[in-house]
């Protein structure tokens, strides 16, 4: 029966993720509409529930334009290179102690490693389209993602030090008393900011800054190839929000021993809070400038993350406090 | 009412015709005629100021510099000088730098086609003394050339390009005298009174 699970599981997960993406987009538009004092989509279906479905349908039926002077092959495979890692990272994420796929010993590192591949897809896509705006967007994106990967990885080292493992399931298990958000507050803040930057979302959405670069790296893409880029963005939101929940919010663990809700529901609740936070930020903040962005990563976040590692190492040796760092 | 106006129009036209015929007359001067026709306007309170200004300019640049001077009684009694084209460049830098003028702010710069000649009209403002002055420079129609004042008032840059674009007046010494509003390959200068549109329309 194992092989059945290996085939059906990923398909199911893909379905869940697509469903999430569909409704995350609707949710985002509704939230931002609410922030901006307007109804948001409300025409397609009751409360606009089929809006994204209609949008996807529209994208799929659109003409697939490949620019004449583009590098045809690369232009076509770039969306795939971008999307596949976004789906691959989901393999190691445990949603509860039962619903999970691969239980890698180095799950956290696996996530970081695979997600860096997406940058390559973005670079290839931006370069192959033979468009200057796209090229600028691609370069910004590469510079940004490489820079922010470092504080991102550094900020979770505190968690790893406390949990003594890179395995995500075990990291959640280590939080059954205290969520890591409390002892690792600095780490959490750095992680959150760096993860927003990794996701290319406001205020770090420079690669696709529409007011400067029109749409950044996917300027030349239309139809379902464009949809792939969108899908990637939201798949990463899914993955990143899950990871944040697991690393800092105790995963599926119920707070205060409130176990009347099943673990999965707790996971979804915490996850939803993070997703809402991302949308909220988008509705309120302006965009940073490239040089400020780089400075922020190297001069603020990285030192903070390093300090957090140091602090964790010290506090682990202090008698009473070390219980929180186990 | 209308008849009167018609008459006025006719007389105006005939006058223009008259002006076109004699060759020796240097240029048509529209302003003094207003004074002739209308019931004589009260002398402006700014007349002494004008006399002073004219005197100072003639002292520095000679008699020929100012061809004519009057107070434009419309609005805020604007001092108006009609300046000889050859002296304009010198006068411009004087107007900007002289301590008791300091016309540092170029409000407006317009070109006018007066049929027999062109005119470039500068409206200058002094932020120090809070006063305004208007300078007319007449430009020959057959050889429309006038020194550029971009080096004195950088703000004149686009204005001069616009005038060049629409009236075809050459500004000698302009750093980048190209068409600005019309397409580069456009033929003719649209704001000239004798302009015949080449395109058939859309």
């Amino acid at each position, binding site marked *: 029966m194992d092989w059945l699970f290996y085939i059906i599981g990923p398909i199911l997960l893909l379905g869940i993720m697509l469903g999430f993406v569909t409704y995350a987009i609707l949710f985002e538009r509704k939230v*931002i509409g609410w*922030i*901006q*004092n307007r109804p948001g989509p409300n025409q397609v279906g009751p409360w606009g529930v089929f809006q994204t479905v209609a949008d996807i349908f529209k994208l799929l039926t659109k003409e697939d334009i490949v620019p004449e002077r583009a590098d045809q092959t690369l232009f076509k495979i770039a969306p795939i290179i971008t999307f596949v890692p976004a789906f691959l990272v989901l393999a190691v994420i445990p949603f509860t102690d039962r619903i999970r796929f691969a239980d890698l010993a180095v799950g956290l590192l696996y996530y970081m490693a695979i997600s860096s591949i997406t940058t390559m897809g973005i670079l290839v896509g931006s370069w192959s389209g033979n468009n*200057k*705006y796209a090229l*600028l967007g691609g370069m*910004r994106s590469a510079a940004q993602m490489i820079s922010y990967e470092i504080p991102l990885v550094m900020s979770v080292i505190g968690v790893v030090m406390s949990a003594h493992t890179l395995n995500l399931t075990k990291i959640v298990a280590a939080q059954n008393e205290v969520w890591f958000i409390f002892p690792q507050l600095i780490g959490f803040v750095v992680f959150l900011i760096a993860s927003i930057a990794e996701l290319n979302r*406001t*205020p770090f*959405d*420079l690669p696709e*800054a529409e*007011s*400067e670069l*029109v749409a950044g790296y996917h300027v030349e893409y239309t139809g379902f190839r464009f949809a792939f880029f969108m899908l990637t963005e939201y798949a990463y939101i899914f993955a990143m929000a899950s990871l944040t929940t697991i690393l800092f919010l105790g995963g599926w663990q119920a707070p205060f021993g409130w176990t009347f809700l099943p673990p999965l529901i707790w996971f979804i609740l915490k996850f939803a809070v993070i997703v809402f936070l991302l949308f909220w930020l988008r*509705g*309120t*903040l*302006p*965009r*940073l*400038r490239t*040089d400020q962005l780089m400075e922020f990563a190297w001069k603020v976040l990285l030192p903070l993350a390093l300090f957090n590692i140091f602090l964790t190492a010290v506090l682990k040796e202090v008698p009473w406090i070390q219980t929180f760092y186990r | *009412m*209308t008849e009167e*106006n018609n008459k*006025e*129009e006719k007389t*105006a036209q005939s006058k223009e015709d008259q002006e076109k015929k004699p060759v020796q007359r240097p240029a048509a001067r529209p*302003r003094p*005629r*207003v004074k002739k*026709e*209308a019931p004589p306007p009260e002398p402006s309170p700014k007349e002494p100021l004008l006399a002073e200004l004219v005197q100072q300019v003639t002292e520095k640049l000679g008699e020929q510099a100012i061809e004519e001077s009057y107070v*434009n009684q419309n*609005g805020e009694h*604007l001092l108006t000088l009609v300046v000889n084209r050859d002296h304009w460049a010198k006068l411009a830098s004087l107007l900007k730098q002289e301590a008791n003028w300091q016309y540092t*702010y*170029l*409000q*407006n710069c*317009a*070109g*006018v*086609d007066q049929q027999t000649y062109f005119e470039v009209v500068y*409206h200058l403002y002094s*932020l120090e003394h*809070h006063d305004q002055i208007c300078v007319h420079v007449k430009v020959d129609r057959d050889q429309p050339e006038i020194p550029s004042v971009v080096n004195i*008032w*950088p*703000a004149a*840059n*686009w*204005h001069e390009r616009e005038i060049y674009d*629409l009236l075809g007046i050459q500004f000698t010494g302009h750093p980048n005298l190209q068409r600005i*509003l019309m*397409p580069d390959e456009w033929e003719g200068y*649209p*704001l000239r009174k004798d302009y015949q549109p080449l395109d058939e329309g859309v």
Partner: protein
Amino acid sequence: MLRTEEMLLNVGPQHPSTHGVLRIVVKIDGEVIREATPVIGYLHRGTEKLAEDLNYTQIIPYTDRMDYVSAMSNNYVLVHAVETMLKLEIPERAEYLRVITLELNRIASHLVWMGTYLLDIGALSPFLYAFQDREKILDLFNELCGARLTYNYMRVGGVKWDAPNGWLQKVEQFITMMEKRMKDYHQLITGNEIFIQRTRGVGVYSQEMAIQYALSGANLRVTGLQRDLRKEHPYSIYDRFQFDVPVGRHGDLYDKYLCRMNEVEESLKIVGQALASFPEKGRVLGKVPRVLRVPEGECYVSIESPRGELGCYLVSKGKDKPWRLKFRRPSFCNLQILPVLLRGENMANLVAILGGIDIVLGEVDC
């Protein structure tokens, strides 16, 4: 050593942040701008040429299309020029209506600027808030003159329509609402750290430079020079109202933002005062001949439009049509400084600096 090549980038004429059909040819080295050349004329309709074949009342709708964000100012400047030449007396009530509409239009224009500027910088929400408030002003105008953007409201000698019943009360309500909204804006934007980071110390120029390039409006006042034509050469009935002229200190984009926001507050004050002393009765259109024949002569009038000094140079030969009509468009003059400001700047600052100048392409191209 490895050298990066300069790249030629065409920003516009279709680009989300050029606010219309402006094209900027930018030479960039990495993300640093080496040279920027604005190319204009995509919206040139030859208003000045057309005007030479139209009588004065017919020109008014054309002026609406120049600065379509604050068409009232354009209407007014033309009408003001003709009235100056004709030495007309304007009925009291008309003057009050003019001031109210001019100031409301200024508020609407600054709101559009604020919204789109924040959009350029990357914030979505202020844009929608600003447009909601602007919408209320447009509704007021719609009720007054039947149009939301191209008002065609002013006439030589007064205004076309009197305020409908209850309109003044609505304006009053709007003012009280807007005063509250200004506090919201300050809370949302003025203290926003990222906004400050993006605008503080960016696009700075000195006062001398601003004068050299004949900048006007908030672009000039931001350098600390207090030049507002409403105060300096009061036209209409502006000398009757109490208001301040906000100036900046640093000459950067953040000061520009503060200047314009404070101007909105001052405009609210002016409208409030105008409503308080609004004449009960009276004509709104003075006695003017049916066919307007402007006596021979010329005049230059200038008013403080939301974008700066909006001038109108009118030459008449005594006919019912102008001999030459030239508009001094503030956007056109202010845009000249752009290449100087952009040199050596970061690419991301391009939109911020361009947005800070506050241009309307209808006016630039005329």
